[in-house]
């Protein structure tokens, strides 16, 4: 986390940064309460309350970081992406659909060690057959049909799922690959769900 700041400092006028990171009285009190009034349960330990570099910036700027900071930190997030060694980005859309459906994972009532779901339908419209979709994120129906099926698009979708913050620092979308929620293979399967011409998403 310290590293992020130092890195950012090299590029950003320090005044802008200082202002972005200053904690008001109320915020300081809120942090104190957050520190004091939680208890660990199941897999959800107290360590989850600590902000990493991205969260710290987003929290202190109302999710609207100054462009200079955002650019630097987005590049940082981009660098976290581990690209498949075999160079293939497309998996099996049928498995992708199952991963997109599952909302499991990371809560204190989830059994640790079990596979985490993508939670995708919680926030996105995806396949045409699923009507119970959320609207926190944009609709992804017809994604490939609308945006193209080429290698660049595959790369973009893989990277977006791996680490959504690489493109939009304070995105509301979780960083599924970065935090180890989804495996490389699972992300490939999701890429196929959005970009395989045979996937119902593109029918």
């Amino acid at each position: 986390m310290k590293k992020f700041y130092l890195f950012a400092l090299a590029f950003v006028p320090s005044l802008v940064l200082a202002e972005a990171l200053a904690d008001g009285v109320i915020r300081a009190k809120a942090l104190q309460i957050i520190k004091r009034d939680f208890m660990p349960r199941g897999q959800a330990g107290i360590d989850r309350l600590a902000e990493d570099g991205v969260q710290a910036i987003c929290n202190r700027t109302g999710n609207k970081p100054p462009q200079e900071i955002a650019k630097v930190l987005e590049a940082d997030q981009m660098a976290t992406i581990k690209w498949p060694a075999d160079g293939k980005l497309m998996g099996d859309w049928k498995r992708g659909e199952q991963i997109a459906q599952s909302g499991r994972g990371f809560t204190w009532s989830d059994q640790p060690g079990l596979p985490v779901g993508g939670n995708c339908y919680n926030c996105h419209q995806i396949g045409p057959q699923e009507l119970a979709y959320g609207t926190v994120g944009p609709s992804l129906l017809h994604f490939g049909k609308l945006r193209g099926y080429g290698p660049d698009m595959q790369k973009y979708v893989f990277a977006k799922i791996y680490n959504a913050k690489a493109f939009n620092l304070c995105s509301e979308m979780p960083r599924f690959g970065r935090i180890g929620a989804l495996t490389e293979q699972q992300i490939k399967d999701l890429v196929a769900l959005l970009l395989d011409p045979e996937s119902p998403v593109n029918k």
Partner: protein
Amino acid sequence: MTMKAVLASTALSLFVGVAAHAQETIDHAKAHEEFEKFRAEMEDSNPAELFALKGQELWHAKRGPKNVSLHETCDLGLGIGKLEGAYVHMPRYFKDADAVMDAERRIVWCMVEKQGFKFEDIAKKPFMGANDTQAPDITNLVTYIAEKSRNMKFAVDLKDPKVREIYEIGKEIVNYRAGPFDFACNTCHGTDGRRIRMQNLPNLAKPEGAAKGVLGWPGYRMTGGVMLTHQWRMNDCFRQQRFPEPKYASDLITALLTYMTANANGVVYKGPGIKR
């Protein structure tokens, strides 16, 4: 408890089965509509009545190591024994405790300070679980107290500097992103018209959204047939947020409830409700 209410709770469990099944198939919108219709019909024979009645008994009974009743010792802000309107004026600052407290927390405070119960014992299992046949005493008590403010307007006193401060702290907390998914309350509740799957997410920053966030609590939840409090809702939202568990009856929860309830100031409280 009227006969109608008894019938209602039977009908309710039947409906839950149907609704749960419907939700697994395609027709979610329909299930939602059915539920709203059902809720409207149940308005005046709400199963929450059962819990409020138990709460009334508990409120008046001499209990605890000190063998006193809450009725003769517990001041909910308007004076001992004065219950009408107390719920819609909380959270408020209580001098004797030197803290801003929401209704549930205040009743817990009275149970501990006046009746001599141990906080740890109450906090061990503060909420009704899916397999429980009875609600915890504290849930029954809150439901009773809430019932006493039916048809009154929420009126959290933001002119009180202590209330104002905890309100501002609440506003910070709903924006605090952390945890593996980088979620804050506002990831789900900070914008109008959002849904997680089919569930509408109220925008807690706006009066209409805040009203949705506070109306109908405490509420009888049809899924599982349990009576649940506003503190429970906060607890379960933190779970969904992938955060650790908030401490029961803590400043953390009071801050959130102050923020939400004050944003709903002026809205008429309809009493304990029915939730999906």
